[in-house]
């Protein structure tokens, strides 16, 4: 799909000032750059200065066996014609038990609501976010951090009862 794939990889390396052995992989449909959380803000600022002016999606992926949560920012460009055909995934991995990622909403405003959603679904704490509170879910469901892999989706026949007497005995609504 992207014609000069090697060209964009080289260009990214020069924008971000990375060493030649730093991980920049060309995946199917986007280019992934992995940085550690401390240098996330600098990398984002450099990308924004180079022309990547908005974030398309903020993803968090849960790897329970590696005990990590990986947060990826897919950024692209609307105004720059040479860059608008490419999508860059700025990825960082944090510890699963206490995930803290510096918030990029001061650099890219388009990431504000998406970071809120990742906060409520995975429990990832974004430092410096102006308004971190649950967005989609009610507070009791958000406390269980639903999109993590240890939240199992339960087959509904187990506890959903049909009359109110049976419902009160199971009391799913706590």
């Amino acid at each position: 799909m992207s014609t000069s794939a090697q060209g964009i990889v080289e260009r990214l390396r020069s924008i971000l000032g990375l060493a030649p052995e730093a991980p920049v992989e060309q995946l199917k449909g986007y280019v992934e750059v992995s940085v550690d959380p401390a240098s996330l803000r600098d990398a984002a600022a450099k990308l924004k200065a180079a022309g990547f002016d908005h974030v398309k999606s903020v993803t968090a992926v849960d790897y329970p066996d590696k005990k990590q949560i990986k947060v990826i920012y897919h950024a692209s460009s609307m105004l720059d014609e040479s860059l608008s055909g490419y999508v860059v995934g700025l990825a960082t991995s944090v510890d699963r038990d206490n995930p803290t990622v510096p918030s990029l909403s001061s650099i890219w405003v388009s990431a504000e609501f998406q970071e809120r959603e990742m906060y409520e679904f995975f429990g990832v704490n974004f430092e410096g976010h102006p308004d971190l509170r649950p967005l989609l879910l009610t507070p009791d469901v958000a406390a269980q951090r639903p999109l993590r892999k240890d939240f199992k989706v339960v087959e509904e026949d187990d506890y959903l009862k049909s009359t109110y007497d049976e419902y009160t005995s199971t009391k799913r609504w706590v």
Partner: protein
Amino acid sequence: MGTEGSQVQSLPGMQVHPLKKNLYEVAIGPAHPGSGHMRILVRVEGDVMVEVDPDIGFVHRTMEKLSEGRDWMKNIPLFERMAILDACNVTLPYVEAVEKLLDVDPPERAKYLRTLLCEINRVASHLYGFGIFGVFLGHSTLYMWAFGDREVFVELAERLTGARLTHTYPMFGGVRRDMPDDFGQHVRKAAAYMRRRLDEYAKIFLLNPNIRSRLEGVGVVSKSRAVELGLAGPNVRASGVRYDVRLAEPYEAYDRVDFEIPIYEEGDSLARAWQRVEEIKQSLSIMEQAVDWLEKHPREGFVHEKFWKTAPPIYKKVYAGEVPYAGKYRVKMIPLYASLKVPAGRSFARTESAHGEITYYVESDGKDVPYRVRLVSGSYRNVIAFKYVMPGHRLADLPAIYGSFDYFPPEWDR
């Protein structure tokens, strides 16, 4: 806004007290004709909106979590319910992302068929947007006209796929079925009818002095602001930004059909409404070009060979027309899809749907269920406009701005 008492001098015998800010919170809830399926918490001072906080999640049906427990094929109808109006546009990036992982390129005929259905859905969705816009502004004639004309295109989609709204048409490797023989004449009739009707829409709605005074200069989003907020779809093109996924990274048959991207510079609500009308015109011309190509080329290969060669011979006979398809033989889904295992990898795909740009991030670890699917739709990216564009306007302008953004809550909440 609030005058502090420091600017006014106190004369003898007169006391000046600073005004306190009176902020009232108005909850425009889900049971409201001007709110859709969401609650908008507005803090007003007098009549002017100071802070707007969208309280969404009323239609959150947990598609991302459910998709991790279902087969690859079963996720296509699941994601379709996100924006049921343009069902082809919202499932197409998922199918493309998985096709990238499978290393399968659909044949030419399948690409043109997908393009055709995408454009039919785009027109139907824009007309639905107009209908809802009419309800918000109190223009019930527009609601009736838009929903009546939308039926023309829903009927076209029903002839092509068999269902009114839930098409489930793109599949990995191709499409679900080929188009009927007389489809070309129906498309041309629908396109000619719609072009005549668009002039009448302009007369009653866009050039109507009442509507113009409500929409002109309201909700202005400048070019740099639109890019900074990350808006998507017709909203960003009405602010002067020349960005469309069909141009930036062409997919399916879009690099072989001729079309233009209309751009408007003003960035107010009226420009967004005009933008949609112009997009409908362009979609009609793409539909005609696609159907011309499809009629000229032979009817073969609407599914990739890798999947088609595993189909039982009775399926091939039915699709070739040798066996009359009168329900005597049950032709179901090609069996390879039921036990499909996608090789491990990560991929990303995006398309341009009617509400904006839809992006999917698909991660697989070699099993028959996805590991993670992350989808961001156009309405998702437009909701930030509530917080940053609306303050400063009067409360009565809220439906005008809301309707012009064509925000569709199930697309955000998934």
